[in-house]
């Protein structure tokens, strides 16, 4: 009899919970079956009136039913919670096409970016950095670089003077002299910095930047100059960049060379796809990028080295020129107008 009523109870419970009970209904069912006056509790009370031999079997059945009811109620609650979570997750959709939020970053000046690139290539080759003053004397800027007072090569470098014999350095080469005056070979140095020329138009700024470099030891040859600078140019431009060495003249190097790279726009062809001469290299296919040479024995004499015992090469490059070629900038003045619309392009 009792067993039958247990079965009925279970069926009834199942049908009630199966109807899709809400959280409140689950709570109500819990009270209705397991509460102090609940249907199961009532059966437990009637338990004592049973004959002792029936008790174990029935007790077990009762406990199972109670466990069953509890589990089903818990299960249902879990189900409801899960469903609620899913509902919320479904509702909480953001519009991912809205813009991200962040503070504006600043930008590093493109000349610094290019300067850093140049410097890093040489640092990894074991060069070290030396610095010299922007305000130089005539001796270091010209004379010790084998440009005596009446030398026509001085015409190539229109000079700002601050006094009779003090001037704004026209190139970074005086750092060569300053380092060699202080130290003995071996030397592998680069000297980055600002230089000044009395000139102002779309391709000349009264201030621009150079990186000077030199290597002096007992055995350095022109072929080494070619090797080091070719490596450098292929690092800064493209690994397959064509490089060409041409004879030239600088008072402080002998032999001297001017170094060209294949035009970055027409890739050395010299003309556009429409057959017009390339506007970047003016149809030559080449771009002048570096000046270099073997350090002149006269320069070694000025710093007290014996030119029969040491040799070395020196080179110099314009940072603006490299930046203009790299980024396709046509007016040098853009670098110094500092217009944020320009600077922001270099991220």
């Amino acid at each position, binding site marked *: 009899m009792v067993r039958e009523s247990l079965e009925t109870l279970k069926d009834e419970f199942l049908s009630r919970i199966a109807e899709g009970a809400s959280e409140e209904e689950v709570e109500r069912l819990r009270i209705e079956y397991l509460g102090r006056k609940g249907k199961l509790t009532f059966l437990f009370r009637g338990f004592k009136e049973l004959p002792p031999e029936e008790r174990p079997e029935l007790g077990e059945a009762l406990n199972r039913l109670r466990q069953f009811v509890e589990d089903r109620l818990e299960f249902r609650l879990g189900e409801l919670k899960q469903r609620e979570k899913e509902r919320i997750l479904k509702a909480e959709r953001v519009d991912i096409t*809205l*813009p*991200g*939020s*962040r*503070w*504006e*970053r*600043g*930008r*590093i000046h493109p*000349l610094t970016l290019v300067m850093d690139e140049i*410097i890093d290539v040489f*640092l*990894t080759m*074991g060069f*070290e950095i030396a610095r010299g003053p*922007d*305000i130089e004397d005539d001796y270091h800027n010209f004379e010790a670089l084998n440009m005596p*007072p*009446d030398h*026509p*090569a001085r015409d190539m470098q229109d000079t*700002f*003077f*601050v*006094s009779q014999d003090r001037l704004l350095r026209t190139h970074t080469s005086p750092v060569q002299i300053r380092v060699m005056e202080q130290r003995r070979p071996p*030397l*592998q*140095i680069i000297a980055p910095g*600002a230089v000044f020329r*009395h000139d102002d138009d779309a391709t000349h*700024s*009264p201030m621009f930047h150079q990186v000077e470099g030199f290597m002096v*030891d007992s*055995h350095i*040859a*022109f*072929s*080494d100059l*070619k*090797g*080091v600078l070719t*490596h450098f140019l292929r690092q800064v431009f493209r690994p397959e960049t064509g490089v060409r*060495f*041409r*004879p030239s*003249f600088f008072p402080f190097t*002998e*032999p001297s060379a001017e170094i060209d790279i294949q035009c970055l726009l027409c890739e050395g062809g010299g003309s556009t796809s429409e057959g017009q001469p390339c506007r970047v290299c003016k149809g030559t296919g080449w771009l002048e990028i570096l000046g270099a040479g*073997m350090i002149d*024995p006269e320069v070694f004499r000025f710093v007290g080295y014996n030119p029969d015992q040491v*040799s070395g090469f020196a080179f110099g490059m314009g940072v603006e020129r490299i930046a203009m070629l790299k980024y396709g900038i046509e007016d040098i003045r853009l*670098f*110094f107008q*500092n*217009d*944020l619309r320009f*600077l*922001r392009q270099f991220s």
Partner: protein
Amino acid sequence: MKFTFSWLREFVDVKKSPQETAYALTMAGLEVESLASLGGQEDWVMEVAVTPNRGDCLGILGLAREVAALTGGRLKLPPVLPHVKGSGMERLVDVQIRSPSLCPRYSARMVLGVRVADSPDWMRVRLEVCGIRAINNVVDVTNYVMLETGQPLHAFDADRLATKRIVVREAGGIAKLVTLDGTERELASGDLLICDGDVPIALAGVMGGKDSEVQWDTHTVLLEGAHFDPACVRRTAKRLAIHSEASHRFERGVDPEGTLYALDRAVFLLAEAAGGVPVKGMVDRYPRRVKATPIVLREKRVSGLLGIELSRREAERLLKSLGMQVQSRSKIGARVVPPSYRRDLTREADLIEELARLHGYEKIPSTLPWVRPVGAGYDFRLQRERKVRAFLLGEGLTEMINLPFTSVELNRRFYGLWGDRGAAVSILNPLAQDKTELRLSLIPGLLENLRANLAQKARSFYAFDLGKVFCLNAQRSAEEKQYLAALLCGARGHRGLRLKEELAPNLRDAKGLVEGILEVLGIEAQPTWSGVGVGSFLHPGKAAVFGFGEREMGCLGEVHPDLCEELGLAPFLVVELDFEGLVQYAPRRLAARPLPRFPSVERDLAVVVDGTFPAQRIVSWIKELNHSLIEDVQVFDEYRGSPIPEGKKSLAYTISYRAEDRTLTDAEVNQLHHELAARIGDVFRAKLRG
């Protein structure tokens, strides 16, 4: 140097096309800057950028020699009308060189019965294609021959010379000369003059005089072909700012052996183009023969310097192709004599360059040198610069690079950290009248950048400049330092949806930048801050200077309201610091500390103090207690307004307590904190809150 291809072919059998010839010249150091077809004439104009050492290539003859050496063509010389022996010339003119070191050679010829007129078309066209204005047949012939040979010639109207006694001398007491451009020139005593007796008739090698110039009625022409000292010509030309075709060539070295050929060529052309009849004989004063000294060329040096092995035969072949004589050979090397027209070749290194040039730079291999690793590969200063730049860009500041030229007025107002007696460095030859000095401060540059960017509708402007400033020190010699300046204007730019509230930066943002820079540099020392001695362009109450001990390192502040008004801008902030000085305080090494083993406990403290009371004072006082259980003190709030009485403010601090060897109990901390608060109340006569 501009010339036509057809003209070049009058001097050398060119076996190659104009394009191939141009390439060969370029790759031999005579860069062909342009090569243009002359429409309809089957001819080409070539322009070569001649380097200052190659005076010999400022004439077609010199270029022809190069082409012959590079491509193997045969040299030839156009026709001349040599002088007929006789004393006609000697009777008409006397030449005396008083300064033989400045004028080693003076040659001259004379032509009678000249009919001055326009030059024949072929000559005019050639001159003009090559960039020289045609004037009349006599002057044009001198220019034509100069283009051919590189030897400048001058034609005097001999009938206008009173004494016909040519004297080459330094100006000495002669003060003035009107040159043929009509300008009266003030002479310096060292200028070299050509005189007719005592009357100056030309600035030697620079420009002729007006009074003896060839005119339409000239009949008798005295042709001068001389050799002048390059430095002397350059000094005069530079000082008088005359850059003539003649001075350009003399400065770069002309062949001293070339005067006679040039004169004979000119006489030939004058006879042809102006119907002149040459006077018999000629004058050739050559008191100082310019002799080339033999140069010893060591084989070992050639291979050592170039990194290639050139056979002796090949080396000699190359040298000879350039007109050099190989006098003798030994095991070490050879004695080589360069030709008279290559005055740039005086040393072994010069010959090695010639070998490299003719051998071809392209044929020298690329090698990487074996080097002793001496370079540090790490540069402390550079790394500090990079760290600070990275920090600033993260803070939203963009780097500016400004030119260092500025005006007297700006330097007077913005004198950086040099003190108000900072004397600026002047430029003796400025590009513009508002750019006559070097900047004492980076701030005016940033102000200009701000103005320009706002004019371009920038909504805010956050920028910095890491650059050099210049000053004259007490000994009046120029000093330079690397400074860092920053400018913050407007609410910091933000990307994304519009912010509910946009905050303009205030003084503490500027101070935060400075603190951040110190932190990035690893400087742990606390600078002292003071409102005394701030620049007059700053707001007197919202600005400060800071430094270490006596040494001032920088300043910051809101700009003065007057300046804002002047610029028409809302208040903004500037910072300037001595970056180079600051880096000296940066430690070379960092040491890590272990983590504390026991927890800290924090307690807040709020006090009401006078409105002018500096918050830092309580922090310093607590730190000076050096209490072993007090780890740190920070100010976290400043408040004015109700319920704090007028003229007072509330300051809130947080104090963290920690013991090294145990966990502090609440009771312990409470007691410590209570005692500390009470003492602060007493010491600073501050009312404790809450």
